[in-house]
């Protein structure tokens, strides 16, 4: 099975200039963890995910420090979260996005999700335009269908 058979073709995307607060609200409304960011030339420029929000509000040295020393949230984290409303998503997004083309096999997409630690992968056509998006759930559903376990 190819990814084009299971991907979501109606892709919701956001522009790089969109405000982070609005983008976050959109994520919550759609109940998904990430959105592709597409510029005016219809080119994929990044991915915006909940993870980017967490990365932005936590100190950059947190991986090296090992663990937090607070019982409660420090003031600075709350302030950083407040500051998100003045930031555009282009400041927060991941720029090196993992993508696949339409003819990529399901197992290869699954491999990328596991090894690159991503949940949603944009699907590009030959002109490098976004034609779909595939999420972890889509893959699992496809395998369930294939196994004949029958859902929905």
């Amino acid at each position: 099975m190819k990814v084009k058979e299971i991907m979501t073709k109606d892709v919701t995307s956001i522009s790089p200039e969109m405000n982070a607060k609005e983008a976050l609200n959109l994520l919550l409304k759609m109940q998904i963890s990430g959105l592709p960011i597409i510029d005016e030339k219809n080119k994929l420029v990044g991915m915006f995910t909940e993870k980017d929000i967490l990365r932005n509000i936590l100190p950059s040295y947190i991986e090296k420090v090992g663990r937090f020393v607070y019982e409660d949230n420090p003031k600075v984290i709350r302030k950083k979260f407040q500051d998100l409303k003045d930031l555009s998503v282009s400041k927060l997004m991941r720029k090196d996005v993992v993508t696949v083309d339409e003819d990529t096999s399901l197992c290869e997409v699954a491999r990328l999700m596991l090894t690159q630690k991503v949940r949603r992968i944009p699907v590009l056509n030959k002109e490098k335009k976004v034609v779909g998006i595939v999420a972890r759930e889509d893959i699992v559903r496809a395998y369930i269908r294939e196994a004949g376990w029958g859902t929905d």
Partner: protein
Amino acid sequence: MGNRLIPKFIFLFFLIALVVLSSQGIGLNYQQTIAVAIFSASVFATLLFWDFRVAVAFLGIAILLITKTVDLENMVRFASLEVILFLVGMMVLVGLLKEMGFFAWLVTLILRIKNLTAKKFIFVISILSALLSCCVDEVTSIIFMVAAILEICDYFEVEPTPYIIISVLCTNIGSTGTVLGNPIGILIASKSGLTFEDFLLKAFPLMSICLLVAILLLIFWYRKAIKKLDEKLKELGGNEILVKLISIPPERQLRLGLSIFGLTFLFISLHHRLELLWGLEANTLLLSVPLVSAGCVMIWKWRKAREYIEKDVDWWTLLFFLLLFAKAGTLKYTGATDVIAQRLLHVVEHNSVALTGVILWMSSIGSSILDNVVLVAAFIPIVQSFKDLGITLQPLWWALLFGGCLGGNITLVGSTANIVALGILEKERNIRMTFFRWFWVGLSVGIVTTGIIWLALITLPIYR
């Protein structure tokens, strides 16, 4: 990106050509010239192409081998695997301490200080920065110090920059105190025959004097910032609220981790006596104790052993060091450093006191722009060459150690600790340090502390 790289590479070749011409000018032969050119390529790469330095080091070693400037056997010998393994062992150990929450616990100690005053705060962060960088490497220690300082400054709503600068300056000073503080410490110890005890008895007291003078100087330098913090402390009524936020009791695991570290420290400091007692070759224990500790850690935490080795050990830097040492050894092997040593001795008219001063100030000023490991690796074979010329080496080793560490304070790129701390400051608080904001205070501390060392090395008999 490619377009910007080409002129840089052309500039690199131009610099190397310049080195080749001047090497010929001072009468170096063909192989000595190659050794000098390859070594200087590494130096320039650290200055101009930080990301390419390991690549340049790989190519350089290959050229040295192919041109028969050095043979395989000697290349391996010069690479000083013992120093690299020592650093690997220590990095694993520090990785364990990090995981056990040792540093987080230390940070809470700072945040818990009762009846905080601005001066008390400066004394605590200075002394802790220095002592921490004495015991573990300066890069690990500075990350935790910066984290603690940012928290406190945020709480009291004062600008963190002066305190970060104070902490970095004291970290660099502190890293001279023992063999563990800085890679150049172990490098010098392994090449000079100076023991850990020598460091404790001779380097640590000097470091403490430098630290005290630096603290007083910094308190004067930042008197306005201190006044402001004192005002804020009165206004916000101490850090009691901050204290409530924090609670990390030293757990059993942390205590066990600390015991392993403490034992390591104890055995390292007794290495010379134990080596004499057990009839071992010099430095055998110094270099193998961290390996024993790291080995024990990896048995205790065997599921994570691979993670310690892969993540906590900075292989990128260590590989660069390994190849750098091999290249520096080749300088001595070809006799290039003997020629340079003779020239240097000629310049100072065979006066060993003047020579100590020259080495001290050269390494201090040199390490203000260059990675101190690169600088010290270059100087070690030169210092070794002085031995055959009838010069007492001890003051030169100390000059190299102190110059290499204290000079790092002069500019904002002088040492890795500076770069790491300022990187965090910029990322976390959007404060970008300007060259001169750092330079004047760094230069003052750098010159005063190097001056103290200079005075000590030429007047006190124990350093001669």
